């Protein structure tokens, strides 16, 4: 008998005609690592919730879920609680919301043991400390007494994993455990999960949209699409020779770090369209009463040529978004200058002239948040025209809105809809249509594809590049996803804690990174190839607090190549072949692949 047998599982909701999961059959053996991949809405999470008995009351579930022969579907909470945590445990996607903010970390872990009467109070404390040590929390004694908000995202996810594993479950269900985390932290957490899986002999069910995550960590994979299983097999076979066209589409659209460069070559001698000189941004830190300032962006310069795509990469909190907002005048800059076609711009967007404003546009990360929920698609896309082409007649305006919608790949019927009636990809296309309708010269995309599924992401990127080829658009592309960077950029700018680490040509950066941080980012990206060797050593630790940055080079506490001078002096940007790099050891380190 297998450990977990899912047989003909079907989940329906009264308000939607198509089932969320239909006729799913999956078997999980003891000690096995299995992955479920699929795009959003494919029913992955629904399946996990069904196993844990956490589906909402209005879900209509049929089929069977047997764990060690016991039927879990429709089981009473008393029965389920005998299995939860002690036999089957779960790690949720967002560590910020999955831990109780009012209960100390140690207590949350300890409670699992006491609740299941696995041991007494004194032993529970010892086992909790052990577990905190095992999941790699530094100074476990202190973390035992810490509240969740005192820990960083990665540390909280470690604590979550600890809470899931402390009952020594036979099956660990991890639902997108690293999606909310930075790429270097993701590598650490994945390493931790697979180490613990090997060590404790518990089975692992890893649910993710990221094929790279599955490739490195699972022996078997189930591919889901629209609630149905479309393919199942060993990871190696599925990835090398997919049978289903859906799997093939998933594999081919997933951005790969080793993929083809999609951007077309450019003329580098032309005058820059946008010049940024020594721009700096800081915020007043509310919690500190002494008027301490958090320096989000330290003075930095950048110029952007016509038709050029510059990618800005870095972990969250590295100042990428602050940089973009300061350039656009949405955030006051402390210092520095932004010039457009050789002319300096006022720092606040309200003070800029319409001619300038229409040329600098932005696409935001969350497509739904950037569309006014009370306006229809037509009104949203037409609004820029109403302001900048006030002489335009209504019919003309409607016509150009329709043309624009077709250009971004939307049907004209959508014009009457409201944002909540759109899918994520459609909403992002509307946002792009709004920013392109004035034919801007510069478009800043702030994580514009991060919230979208692989195939949709691919289409949006293609759309942006087509627009670039047609109308000479310059792009600043902010992202944490290096595979996307590889595909579309001409130059790459790497940021760490508000400072520039490296500016390099696309090719040069990926062949021969000069900064140890760039190298760490590159090697943390999960590779969609089960054959590829795992990351040798993922970058340890996390970025320090921006309020008390380390002395010298901000990266030195995490840098494997740090020397004495790194602690004392902040490195300046220096030329190193075609690359600008801020590292004391740029000249003597060879980090190339």
């Amino acid at each position: 008998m297998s450990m977990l047998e899912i047989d003909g599982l079907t989940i329906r909701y009264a308000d939607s005609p198509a089932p969320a999961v239909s006729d799913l059959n999956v078997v999980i053996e003891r000690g096995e690592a299995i992955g479920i991949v699929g795009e959003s809405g494919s029913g992955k999470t629904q399946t996990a919730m069904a196993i844990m008995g956490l589906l909402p009351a209005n879900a209509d579930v049929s089929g069977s879920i047997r764990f060690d022969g016991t039927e879990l579907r429709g089981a009473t909470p008393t029965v389920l609680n005998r299995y939860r945590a002690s036999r089957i445990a779960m790690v949720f996607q967002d560590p910020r919301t999955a831990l109780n903010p009012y209960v100390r970390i140690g207590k949350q872990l300890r409670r699992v043991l006491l609740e299941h009467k696995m041991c007494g109070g004194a032993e529970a404390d010892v086992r909790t400390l052990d577990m905190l040590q095992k999941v790699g929390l530094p100074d476990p004694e202190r973390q035992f007494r810490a509240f969740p908000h005192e820990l960083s995202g990665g540390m909280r996810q470690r604590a979550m994993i600890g809470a899931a594993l402390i009952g020594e479950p036979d099956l660990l269900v991890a639902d997108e455990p690293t999606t909310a985390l930075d790429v270097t932290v993701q590598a650490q957490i994945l390493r931790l999960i697979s180490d613990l899986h090997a060590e404790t002999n518990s089975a692992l069910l890893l649910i993710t949209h990221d094929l790279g995550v599955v490739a490195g960590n699972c022996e078997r994979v189930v591919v889901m699409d629209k609630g149905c299983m479309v393919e199942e097999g060993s990871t190696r076979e599925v990835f090398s020779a997919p049978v289903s066209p859906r799997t093939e589409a998933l594999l081919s659209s997933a951005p790969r770090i080793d993929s083809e460069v999609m951007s077309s070559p450019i003329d580098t001698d032309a005058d820059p369209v946008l010049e940024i000189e020594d721009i700096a941004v800081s915020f007043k830190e509310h919690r500190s009463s002494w008027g301490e300032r958090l320096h989000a962006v330290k003075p930095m310069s950048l110029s952007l040529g016509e038709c050029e795509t510059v990618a800005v990469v870095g972990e969250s909190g590295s100042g990428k978004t602050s940089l973009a907002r300061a350039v656009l005048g949405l955030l006051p800059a402390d210092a520095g200058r932004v010039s457009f076609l050789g002319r300096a711009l006022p720092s606040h967007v309200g003070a800029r002239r319409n001619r300038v404003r229409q040329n600098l546009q932005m696409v935001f990360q969350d497509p739904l948040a950037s569309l006014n929920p009370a306006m229809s698609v037509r009104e949203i896309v037409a609004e820029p025209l109403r302001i900048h082409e006030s002489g335009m007649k209504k019919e003309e305006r409607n016509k150009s809105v329709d043309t624009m919608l077709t250009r971004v790949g939307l049907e004209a019927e959508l014009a009457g809809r409201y944002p909540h009636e759109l899918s994520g990809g459609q909403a992002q296309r509307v946002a792009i249509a709004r920013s392109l309708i004035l034919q801007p010269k510069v478009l800043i995309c702030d994580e514009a594809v991060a919230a979208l599924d692989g195939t949709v992401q691919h289409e949006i990127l293609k759309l942006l590049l087509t627009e670039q080829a047609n109308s000479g658009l310059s792009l600043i592309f902010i992202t944490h996803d290096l595979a996307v960077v590889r595909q579309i950029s001409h130059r790459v700018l790497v940021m760490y804690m508000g400072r520039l680490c490296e500016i390099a040509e696309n090719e040069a950066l990926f062949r021969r990174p000069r900064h140890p941080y760039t190298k760490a980012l590159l090697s943390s990206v999960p590779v969609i190839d089960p054959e590829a060797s795992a990351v040798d050593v993922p970058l340890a630790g996390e970025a320090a607090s921006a309020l008390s940055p380390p002395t010298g080079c901000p990266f030195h506490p995490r840098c494997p190549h740090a020397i004495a001078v790194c602690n004392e002096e902040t490195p300046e940007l220096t030329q190193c072949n075609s690359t600008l790099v801020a590292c004391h050891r740029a000249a003597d380190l060879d980090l190339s692949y």
Partner: protein
Amino acid sequence: MSAFRALRPVARYIRASRMVAICVLFLLLVALVALAGPLLSPNDYISTDFDNRFGAPTMRGMQFFGTDEFGRDLFSRTLLGIQVTLFVAVIASIVSLGIGVIYGATAGFIGGKVDAVMMRAVDALYALPFVFLVILLMVAFERNFLLIFVAIGAINWLDMARIVRGQTISLKHREFVDAARLIGVSTPGIIWRHITPNLFGVVVVYMTLTIPQAILVESFLSFLGLGVQEPQTSLGALVNNGITHMGRAPWLLIIPASVLAFILFCFNFLGDGLRDVVDPKNKT
């Protein structure tokens, strides 16, 4: 107008919840009877009949609710009371809505020092003892129908301003406001086209909860003898009168009090129902 178009979802909510629909239906019915009733009834609210004081409810002469201590027809007086009460409540709510939304949206959107000063002014007004204020107003000026609106509107807009300010602050940090700035929409344009339409859901819900509050305040003032003056009347004034004659003619108390309670119940239920539908957290 984009602001009014935002009312469409509200119409959808009313269709979506049966309870809300029933409440709306009842309230419309009450309002209709109050407006059309006097045209159909042979009695008016003002003629006295000293031969028929404290008449019990009867079908004869359409005196469904009986007569009061002056022999006036209670049915006609109750209909008038409903009219006055609803009128006061709706006008007071609209006044508080107007002041509250403009004040709150301005304070919230501009923020900083302006916000601080404006909201401290609200705090100061909250600190005034309301009943004394009203009594003072009534003593200083002639007793006057208009004063009741002023008094009730003057307290209700404070709550509205606070709620709208909070909503505005959360809305102005949404990305669509930044997107609007980037395409060059002016500040008044942003407040009018992008902020207010998104406030309407909350405001409409809050207004349905403000109306019963205004009704209660009006009843309370009338009960104290500070409200509407004879021969005009309101439900509060009728209840007050009914209490005086409770022993002799209980219907004078029971009937207006029940009508008042029914209207209040409908509004409260409507407000709660709308709040449940509007709040996205309840949509699981």
